[in-house]
Each structure stands twice: as structure tokens, then as C-alpha cells.
């Protein structure tokens, strides 16, 4: 068992609790144990906090990292926004003495110190990493393959960009999440402009909803053209934008897509035999039934 401190984030536990449940249960079946990171706060959201005051962003993220340092465990998380905050702050504070001293000055008030002793990973990259889990192990854990389904993959910007501050070598046409999708028995379909933003991140959703939905709609047009039965991602905020965004698009533009949106954890949960109730799929804005009918 590889043990990690599990950083939950906000959106998964609050809006898509199935994501959280699936992460904890599915990872156990492939040799990863996610331990609760007690006392964690918001990551904090890179767009919202970073845009207002970077020092607050550094200090809050550093506090979350300190909690995992006290557990002596690397962090695993399931959201690209959290990944940007926690991973980037961790790397920057490790490299930049001045920044680290500044953050530690704030942390000293609550008797904490950032040491730079751990690493930060997205659960999806741990799933793909053969040294930790690997596609093969995922395939072996499947009891109910998602045969005859076509799934489009959305990576999400904060996972892969900026390229030079990431471990992934291709941010323009990555294929590794497709491999993870194929491992659960589905067909990963390619669609036009795959790497386009979901429309939510960077404060766009908060600042200009119509514009943000326009971008989302563009993506949905392309995903629909590719004949996908569902869309998968590895970021609850993208999930929110695609899932609830479809309702908003219907209200604002009168376009109805009806494309189910599932976090990869939820897909893996289904493939490992978890029920739709256990995955709280009824809390999704877009009905997953047409997709579930294909596999159940």
C-alpha cells in the first residue's frame, strides 16, 4: 500500500460527494491508501485568492502542505485547481528562499513551519504511474467493464499548464488519461480542440458567466460531434462547469445537450462495481441514466 495524505478540496465533498467516496474506495483496490488530511482548509482557489493577494495564496496553501508534512506523507488530490495551488506553491517555496521565509513568518503565528519535505501529486497521475499503480493495475481492478461506451476526455488547464512548471511533457495533445479510460473498458474518443478550457477557471465563471458558458458550449458542440456518450475529467470544477453549465446553457441559449459528465474517479468506481447510489450520481445536474443504461 502506498499511503498519501488526501487533500479533498471544496467542490468534490460539497457538490459531488461521489467523487470523494470513489477516490477513497477505488484507490484502495489498486494499492493506494488515501489518509484523511485533518484540519485542511480551502486550497485556496488559485483564480480567486491568487488574483486578490498572492501572499495569502502562498500562506494558506503552505499551511495545508504543513499538515501533510506533519503526517510525513506526500499529498494526493483529485482537483486541478487544488493541484495548481498546492503543487505550485510547494515547488515555488522549495526553490525560493525569500518566498519561503515570508510564508513561514505568517505560519509562525500558528506554530507551523513549511519545510519542503513532501511532494504533491494528482491522483490521476498516480494511477498512470507504473511505479505506484499503472494502467495495468487499473485494468485488473475492473469487475464491470464499461464496454460499448464512447467517452470524451477533458484534461483541464491547471493540470498541464504552465508546461515548464509541470512534470507532464505534452500539454497540447496528451493521451494518458485516454489510456486510463481505455483501461476501464470504454472507448476514448478524440474531438476537435480537445485542449480548450472548460470555461470556468481563472475567475472567468465568476467574472463573466455568459462568456464562460460560450466557451463551455463550444466544447460541448465538439464533444457531441465526436459521438461521446459521456465526458470525463479529473477536476470537480470542470465537472461543475460542464454539468451545471449545461443547465445554464439551456436557460440562457436554449440549447440542450444532455451529455453526462463524470469524474474519472466515478467512472473507475462504476467499473469496480460501485452502484450509482454509492457514487451519488443522482446529485449530478445532467441525468447519467442514458450512460448507465449502456453499462448496467
Amino acid at each position: 500500500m502506498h499511503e498519501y495524505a488526501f487533500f479533498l478540496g471544496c467542490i468534490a465533498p460539497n457538490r459531488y460527494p461521489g467523487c470523494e467516496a470513489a477516490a477513497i474506495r477505488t484507490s484502495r483496490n489498486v494499492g493506494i491508501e488515501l489518509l484523511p488530511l485533518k484540519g485542511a482548509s480551502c486550497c485556496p482557489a488559485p483564480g480567486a485568492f491568487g488574483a486578490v493577494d498572492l501572499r495569502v495564496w502562498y500562506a494558506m496553501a503552505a499551511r495545508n502542505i504543513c499538515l501533510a508534512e506533519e503526517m510525513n506523507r506526500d499529498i494526493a488530490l483529485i482537483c486541478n485547481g487544488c493541484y495548481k495551488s498546492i503543487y505550485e506553491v510547494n515547488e515555488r517555496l522549495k526553490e525560493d528562499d525569500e518566498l519561503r521565509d515570508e510564508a513561514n513568518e505568517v505560519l509562525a503565528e500558528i506554530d507551523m513551519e513549511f519545510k519542503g519535505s513532501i511532494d504533491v501529486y494528482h491522483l490521476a497521475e498516480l494511477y498512470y504511474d507504473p511505479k505506484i499503480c499503472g494502467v495495468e493495475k487499473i485494468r485488473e481492478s475492473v469487475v464491470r467493464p464499461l464496454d460499448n461506451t464512447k467517452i470524451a476526455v477533458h484534461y483541464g488547464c491547471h493540470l498541464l499548464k504552465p508546461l515548464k512548471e509541470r512534470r507532464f511533457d505534452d500539454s497540447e495533445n496528451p493521451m494518458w488519461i485516454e489510456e486510463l479510460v481505455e483501461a476501464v473498458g470504454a472507448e476514448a474518443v478524440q474531438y476537435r480542440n480537445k485542449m480548450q478550457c472548460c470555461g470556468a477557471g481563472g475567475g472567468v465563471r465568476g467574472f463573466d458567466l455568459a462568456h464562460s458558458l460560450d466557451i463551455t458550449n463550444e466544447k460541448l458542440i465538439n464533444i457531441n460531434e465526436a459521438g461521446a456518450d459521456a465526458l470525463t475529467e479529473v477536476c470537480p470544477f470542470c465537472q461543475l462547469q460542464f454539468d451545471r453549465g449545461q443547465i445554464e446553457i439551456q436557460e440562457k441559449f436554449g440549447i440542450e445537450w444532455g451529455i453526462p459528465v463524470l469524474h474519472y474517479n466515478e467512472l473507475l468506481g462504476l467499473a469496480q462495481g460501485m452502484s450509482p447510489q454509492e457514487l451519488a450520481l443522482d446529485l449530478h445536474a445532467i441525468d447519467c441514466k442514458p450512460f448507465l443504461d449502456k453499462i448496467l
Partner: protein
Amino acid sequence: MAEEKKQPRIGVFVCHCGTNIAGTIDVEAVKEYAATLPNVIVADDYQYMCSTPGQAKIIDAIKDHDLTGIVVAACTPRLHEPTFRTATKEGGLNPFRFEMANIRDQNSWVHMHDPEGATAKAKDAIRIAAAKASLLEDLYPKSVPVEHAAMVVGAGVGGIQAALDLANAGIKTYLVEKNPTVGGRMSQLDKTFPTLDCSQCILTPKMVDVGRHPNIELHTYTEVEEVDGYIGNFDITLRKKARGVMSQDEAAAKGIVGGGCNGCGDCAAACPVIKPNPFEFGMAPRKAIYIYHPQVVPLVYTIDFDACVKCGLCVEACGEKKAIDLEMTDTFETVKVGTVILSTGYDMFEIEKKREWGYKQFDNVITSLEFERLICASGPTGGHLIRPSDGETPMKVAFVLCAGSRDNTGVGKPYCSRFCCMYSLKHAHQLMEKIPGCQPYIFYMDIRSFGKMYEEFYYRIQNEGAKFIRGRVANVLEDAETKNLHVYAEDTLLGRPVDLEVDMVVLAAAIQPTENIDPVRKMFGVSCSQDGWMLEAHPKLNPCGTTTAGVFLAGVCQGPKDIPDTVAQAEGAASAASIPIHTGKVELEPYFAQCLEEKCAGCGMCISQCPYSALSLVEKDGRQVMHVTEAKCKGCGTCGGFCPGGAIYMQHFTTPQIVAQIDAFLLGGEE
């Protein structure tokens, strides 16, 4: 070596270098400190030590105080060591009695925010230098004769120009080119900016000249295999790749009267194998026996043995000329030259790595070099620009500038490729000229029109109606039906996203050093910058030289530049390369290793350590001892540090000198 030892008498001179040094370091305090050091007889400071009065101080001090060694604390030996050595010599001392302490580049410049620390460091540096100066000895440079011949590697426009200059100066010149013809990249271009001269028209006369020049020995389809020797005496082995076709000279040498290739092309007409022509980037066919284009020099066909099926039809077609030998193998030839010019040029960056622009994914995304061939009258389409997908004439064309250049993502290149802006402006002009109503859109980050008449050319293209959008293209998508392309970008002047539908996209791809050039570069001992471009000796004051004596650079192999700059650098390199040849001898700095034969056991361990192959074992008085070829020795000291018997004496870096420097530092001046 052994000379009468007298008590050392050292003079120390501290330079202000304006405020470069004096603005950070307390020069007065440093000078006073220097005067207290052992053996220091006189200490002085001056505004600019390198100026005439500054040097006069050194000369006078030597005479007035009977000095045995000079220390100047100033900039760097790379800049002014020769200056102060000359002054030392003028004062009547051996020039190698001079030692420099770097208190500017490695001190006041980097510690400008710590005057106290910098001052302390300057005192340390002077103490160390004075300790060494106390032990310096007289040394005498050796000179070696220089072979009256030169080699130019790479026969693009730079190599051609350099070879012509050398040859016209009366020097026998070997021009080596790995391709079957000279001409390089320039012969693939249609027009040249900003004059719109036809590229081939201005290049072919020079190509013809190198083919004919009595002083030039042309080696096409040839690569450098091995390099041995040193300035003045390079022995270079060439691999003449099996061409399968003999030139008329080669045939005459074999006694075939009236034989050899005359370029008639009967062989290619008979050849049944069709392959894509790499000269046209695969957009036109060629046979297994081929020439790149009609103007090749030398006009000798070449067989692509990877494609050839050895059917023998070409041999039959060639008939009495007997030019073709299907069993030809690589041959080797060694030539001796005094100096070498590298002008190995560039290749295009593999722009398909920038997946967002869809090169090799979408038919109608092409590179600028492909555009050159498509718009060129002698190109695959006879100069009619067509879309690869359907052969239609494009009416809206987008140009993506900085495609892979100025790219900090780690995928592309961080540098500016320097000529893409200008050739893209030229392409826009050619479109509007050749296709009435055709609209070019240029997506740019900055337009860098830096040369003579370039800015005027930029205005001209603007006035002709090209549209300019400031913003690097984010991505390109294809409309599956029409094969048209959507170009997405942000217009950073309007602050608005752009979605433009065009018929064709042209990527002004970055350039990078020629593929597989590193082994060649290393054979000549030339280093490279972070980006792989060959490194010049000094970016401003010695842009043609390298750190290897006798090896010079010309053209893009040293860094991106356009044709005028390449030719200018080629002429500079030719001039620099001809100096040692015309002088007839070169002086070598006397930092040689010396073998102390009475201590040498002849074990030969030093020989395997020497990176310059300067050492060998020789028979002397009935036993084996090590011998140094002084012309090859660079004085690196590897052998001296390694010798188990302490039998190697490193001139100018002797063990006592180095120990004295270390002691001076560690003991803080205490005896």
C-alpha cells in the same frame, strides 16, 4: 627553467575602471593593503590601468624599482592580459612575469550590493596574485610553421563566400559539403528580402565560381571523419560517400577517355525507382539517381543507394561515358590544412512538435520553406501556389510568426530566429503580387525589421494591404468538410479573441543547429551555447574565432542570421583564417607541460589522461620517457596532476606557484 634566484620584487596596480570597480570596492584601502604584502615593493592605483598613462605606470615602476613581477588588479585576463603583458615587456621584464587579479567581472560586478565583502574579496585576490607573481619565471613562446592551405566545412552561401575569399587570397582551399551539391539553404529560396532579388540568380554565379576556381578543391557528398593536429597543422580525414557516379576528372584519372558524368540525365530517365525529392520537401518526385535541381555544382548525378534496386538500366543508358559504378564504396582521404572555417548552417525545428498548429495533421498547414518551394518558379508547381488538400489557389493565408521561436514552454526554442519576420513579409508581398485579391494575415508578436532597408520594406508591405494581428496563434483547427483552417489567437492590441477562417496556414518555423552536427563540432574542439549554436571566442570582439586556435565560424552555425550577415561573417572568418597562413607561423603560449626526465619512470599513465593527444613515450638514453608535443599541449595540467612520480612540470602553473596561491588565501597573508 633554472635561473638565478633573487629576492622577488613585486609591483601591484589597482584599477578603478571608472566606477566599475571603484564604485563598489574601496580602491584606496585595497592599495594600502597591497603595499603591506610580502615582496610587494610598490602599490599604486589609477583610474584606467589599460590607458596609456596606466601602462606607463607599470613600465616606469619596473625601471624605478627593479621589479621582478607585476600584478594588476582589474578586469579579466580575457580582456586585458595581452595589454599588460606588453607593458611588462616594454618595462624590460619577460611578459610572463605578469599576473592578473580579477576584481571586476568576478567581484565588483557581482557583489555590487556588498561593498565591504567585495573589498575583502579584492584584498584576497591581490594577496593570491602577489604570491604567485613572486614565483613566476621567464617563459618564451614557441612558434610552429603553418600549412599554406585552409578548409571550409559546409558549402552554403557562407561557406562559398569564405572559400572564394581564401582562394582569391592565393590559399589552397578545400571546400567540404555533405550534400551532392553546393548552395545550401539559399538555393531553396525563391526571392531574398528586402530587394526581392531572385535567390538562385545571385547565388549561382558564386556556385559556378567555387566549381571552377583553381585554388578550390571541391569535395561534395563528403563528410569530415576525423580531425587531428592543431593550428597550422590540422590533419583532416574526409569520408567521400559512395556517390555511384564518377565525375569527368575521376573518370580521366581511371583512364576512361571522354568518360564521367556530363549531367545529360539519360540515367535518371531510365531509372524505374521514384522517390520523394527532399530538396522539394517531398512535394516533387525524383529518381533513385538524381540531381537536386538543374543548377547543381558540380553537375554530377548521385545514386540514392537506399532506394536503388541495382537493375543496371542507368549503367546501360550512360553507355560509353561509363560514369556509373553501382558497386562504389566510401573512400577516405586525409588533407593537411593550416586553418579551418566551419559554416555548417541550420535545419528547421520540427514544428510538428508544436501540436497546437497542426503541422502534419492538417493538409493545408505548411512551413515557410515549403512555401518558398511552392511559390518558386523552379519549384514543384512552377511557381503556382496551391493548397495541398485540393490544388485550389488560396485566397486567404495566415502566417504564424515565432512558430517555435521565442518559446519558453520547453517545447520550442527560447531564441529569436531572426529572419522569419522579414521572409514572412516577403511571402505576404509575393502572395499579393502573384494572386490578385489574395489576403495575407500576419500573426506576430513583434515585427523585427532590424536591417538596412528592412523597416522600409515593412512599411511597403503594410501599404500593399497585408493585415497584421499582434498575438501569437493559440491553435489552428481544420474544418473537416472544406479543409479550411480556423486560426485562433488573441489580438493583444484590441484585447479581443480572434477566430479567422483561412485557406492556408504558413508556419514561420524556428531554426536550430544542423542535425548531427555535434560530433563534427566536438572533433574541432568548438564549444556550443545552451541552444547548440557554436560558440564564438567573444560575442563582440571576436565573433568569427573560437576557443580552438585556427578554427573559425561563419554563418548560422554560430547563431541565427540572414544572408547579408552570413556573408559578412564569412568574409571576416576568411580574413581571420588567412592571417596565420600568410604569416607562415603561429606563436603558441608557453604553458606547456615539461617532462622532468630524471624523475619520469615511463609508465605512460599521463598519455591516456591527455585530452589533446599531446603526449607520447620516446626512447631516451636507453629508457622510455614521456615526450610533450608542445604545439598540441594546451597547458590544462591534467597530466601534471595525475603523474604518480611528480615528473611533470607545468610551466606558468607550477606546483610551488599553486601551493603559494592556496597558502596565501588560507593563511590570510600570515607567513
